[in-house]
C-alpha cells in the first residue's frame, strides 16, 4: 500500500470548471482559484465562485469537501496558499478578520461561540463598529465620557431592537453561557448583524436548532435580504438549502463541482455521486 497521494493531482486547472458564476452580474464576493494547503494536504484546491449582491447562496458538499476551510480563508482566519478573494470590488485576500469585518464582511461560527461570561446584551453591544468609547482615553476623561455615553445610548437602543428582532430580548441580562444551543445561534446572528455588515457568511447556523427556531431564523434571513444583505450559507440540512437558496455551489474534494439553482443541483448525477461517496 503506497503513501497517500495528494488529492486531485491529475485534475484540470480551475479555469475549466464549468460555472454559472458568469451569470451573476453584480458579484459582491468573488473567489478566484482559492487554494489552501496544510502541511502536504490540499484542503482547498482552486475554488472559484461568485456571490451576487443581495442573494442567498448555499455552499454545500460532503464532509471534507473543503467548505469550512474556504470559509476560513475568505474570512481571514486562515491565510490562503493561493488565489484571490475580492469583496465589493477590492482584493481582500489574506486580510485580518477585523479588517474584513470593518469592510462589512462578517461570519458566524459553526459551533456558536458566545462570549459566555458576558450578558446577551453585552454580546450584541460589543459588535457595532468604531464605537467612540473603544478609545481608552475617551471612556475615562470627563467631558469626553459624556459623548461616549450618548454614543452608547444609541448602541443600547439598537441592541434591544436587534434582540427583539430575534426574540431573545427576554434573555438580555442573562449570561450568554446560560443560553440553550438554539438561543446561542440566534445570539450569534444578532451579534453579527450589529456590525452593520454588507455580507454575512453563515457556517451551519441551523445545526442543533429546533424546527420552530429554525423557521424563525430563516424568516429573519429573508427579511434581512429584503434590506439588501447578502448571505453565503454553509448548511447540512438539504431541505433548507434546496428550499431557500436561489443559487447553490457544490464543493467536492476542494473544488467547485457544480453550481446552479436547486433543480439543477438535484438533477445533477455527479452531485449525488459525490454525496454517496462516488469518485467524481
Amino acid at each position, binding site marked *: 500500500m503506497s503513501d497517500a497521494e495528494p488529492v486531485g493531482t491529475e485534475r484540470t486547472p480551475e479555469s475549466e470548471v464549468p460555472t454559472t458564476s458568469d451569470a451573476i452580474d453584480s458579484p459582491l464576493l468573488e473567489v478566484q482559484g482559492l487554494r489552501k494547503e496544510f502541511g502536504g494536504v490540499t484542503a482547498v484546491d482552486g475554488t472559484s465562485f461568485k456571490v451576487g449582491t443581495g442573494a442567498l447562496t448555499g455552499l454545500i458538499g460532503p464532509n471534507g469537501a473543503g467548505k469550512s476551510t474556504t470559509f476560513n480563508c475568505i*474570512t481571514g*482566519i486562515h491565510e490562503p496558499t493561493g488565489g484571490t478573494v475580492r469583496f465589493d470590488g477590492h482584493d481582500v485576500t489574506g486580510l*485580518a*478578520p*477585523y479588517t474584513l*469585518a*470593518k469592510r462589512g464582511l*462578517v*461570519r458566524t*461560527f459553526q459551533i456558536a*461561540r458566545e*462570549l*459566555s*461570561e*458576558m*450578558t446577551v*446584551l*453585552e454580546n450584541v*453591544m*460589543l*459588535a457595532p*463598529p468604531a*464605537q*467612540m*468609547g*473603544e*478609545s*481608552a482615553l475617551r*471612556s*475615562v476623561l470627563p467631558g469626553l*465620557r459624556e459623548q*461616549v*455615553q450618548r454614543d*452608547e*445610548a444609541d*448602541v*443600547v*437602543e439598537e441592541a*434591544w*431592537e436587534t434582540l*427583539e*428582532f430575534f426574540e431573545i*430580548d427576554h434573555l*438580555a*441580562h442573562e*449570561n450568554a453561557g446560560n443560553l440553550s444551543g438554539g438561543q446561542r445561534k440566534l445570539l450569534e446572528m444578532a*451579534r*453579527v448583524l450589529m*456590525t452593520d455588515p454588507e455580507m454575512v457568511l453563515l457556517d451551519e447556523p441551523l445545526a442543533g436548532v429546533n424546527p420552530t427556531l429554525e423557521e424563525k431564523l430563516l424568516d429573519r434571513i429573508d427579511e434581512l435580504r429584503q434590506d439588501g444583505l447578502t448571505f453565503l450559507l454553509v448548511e447540512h440540512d438539504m431541505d433548507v438549502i434546496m428550499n431557500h437558496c436561489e443559487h447553490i455551489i457544490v464543493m467536492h474534494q476542494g473544488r467547485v463541482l457544480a453550481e446552479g439553482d436547486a433543480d439543477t443541483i438535484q438533477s445533477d448525477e455527479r452531485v449525488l455521486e459525490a454525496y454517496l461517496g462516488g469518485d467524481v
Partner: protein
Amino acid sequence: MTGFEDVRDRLEELPDAALVVSFLVGIWLLLTALAFSVGGAQSANLAAGFVGSVTVLVGAYAILTLALNLQWGYTGLFNIGIAGFMAVGAYTTAILTAPVDPGAGGVPGFGLPLWVGLLGGMVMAAIVGAIAALPALRLRADYLAIVTVALSEIIRLFVNWGGVAEVQVFGKRFGTGGATGISFESPDEIVATLVNGPGQPLVTAAESVGISGPNVVNMAYGLSLLGIAAGSYWVLSRLVNSPFGRVLKAIREDETVTQSLGKDTRLFKIKAFMIGCALMGLAGALFRGSAGYISPAQFRPVITFYVFAALIIGGSGSNTGSILGAATFSALLFYLPARLGEYVPTFGQSAPGNVFEAVAALGSLDPTPLVAYTVSNVSTLRFVLIGVVLVYIIQNQPAGLLGHRNEPATSVDLTRPHAADGGEADE
C-alpha cells in the same frame, strides 16, 4: 463553605463604596481592639501604628490588584512578572529623583521632583510592558506567564548588577546602586513635611492622646496610598465600564470571535497591558520605595504571587472585589497574623529555639512549648495559611469574594429604552 457564602451574600447587599469603607473600618477597628487589649498605656499609639501600617499595605496592594485585574481579570493576560514592572517603576523614579550630588556612598541621579519621577516611572513601566507584550501576546496564557516572570527576574538581576550601580552617559552620572540599592526623594518625607507643616494641629491633637508624630505621618501616608488606590479605582472603573472594557472582556472570552467582529484585538491587549504595568510601576515606587530607598531584594518574584492571591481572593474580574481581596490579603492574612504572633500570650513560656525541641516536649505531655513555638513563628506560618487559602478558594470558590458578580461593561443604563411605553416600539 456555607460560612463563606454567608459572608458573600451579606457583602452583596451593600453598595460598593459602603462595602469597601465598612470593610476597611472593620479592619481598623479590629486592629485597634487588638492594640488596646495588649498595649496598656501605649495602646493609642500602638493602635495608630497598626492602623498606619495596615493602611499602607492595603493601599499598595489595592493599586497592584486593580492593575492585575485589568490585565488578568478583564483581558485574560496572565502576567506574573508584576515584581519586575514594580521594579522598573521604582528604579526609574529613584534614578530620576535621586540627588545630583548625593555625597559619600550615595548614587547620583537627576534630582528631579518626585512627581516627575513617578510619572517617568509609570511611563517606563508601560514601555517595558509594551516591549514584553508585543511579541508575547500571541502566546498561550501560561507561556505569557513564563515570559513575564523570566523578564521580571532579568530586570531584578540587571539592577542588582554592579556594572550599572553607577554609570556615566554623556557626562551625566547615575545608576541603580547595584545590590546596595539607591536612595532618592522619599515620598514618605513629602507627606511628613505636609503633616508637620499645615497638618501641625492634627499632630498636636494626636500627640495629646499619646499618638506619636511618626505614626501620624504613617497613617497619612497610608491614606494617601488609599487615595491613589481610590483614584485608580475610579479611572479603571470608567475604563472597563465602557465599550473599551467590553472589548477587553470579549478578548478574555474568545479572541477569534472578537476579531471577527471587527476589533483589532492586539491593540486593545497592548493598551490594557501597558495601563496595568504603569500602575504597577507607580505602586512599586510608592510602596517599596516609600522610605526613599529601594534595593533589588525588594522585588523578588514572590510579591507577584501575593498580588495574585489578593486578586483570586477578591474575585478576578471585579474592581471592587480587587480592593476587598487586597484588603483581605494584606490586612487579614499578611499583617494581622504577624501582629497576633507578637502579642498572643504564650502561657509565660518562652518559645524553644526550634520545632524539634517543641515536639520533644510533647513526649512529656507538655504542649506549651509547641504552642509557644508556633505562635512565635506565625510570621512564617501565615504564608502557609495564604497557600492553603489560595488552594481552598480555587477549589471551592473560584469566583472569589465578588468575581461572580455580573458587572456589565458599559457606561450607560442598560434597561430597555421605551420600556415605559408598554413595549409599543416594535411589536
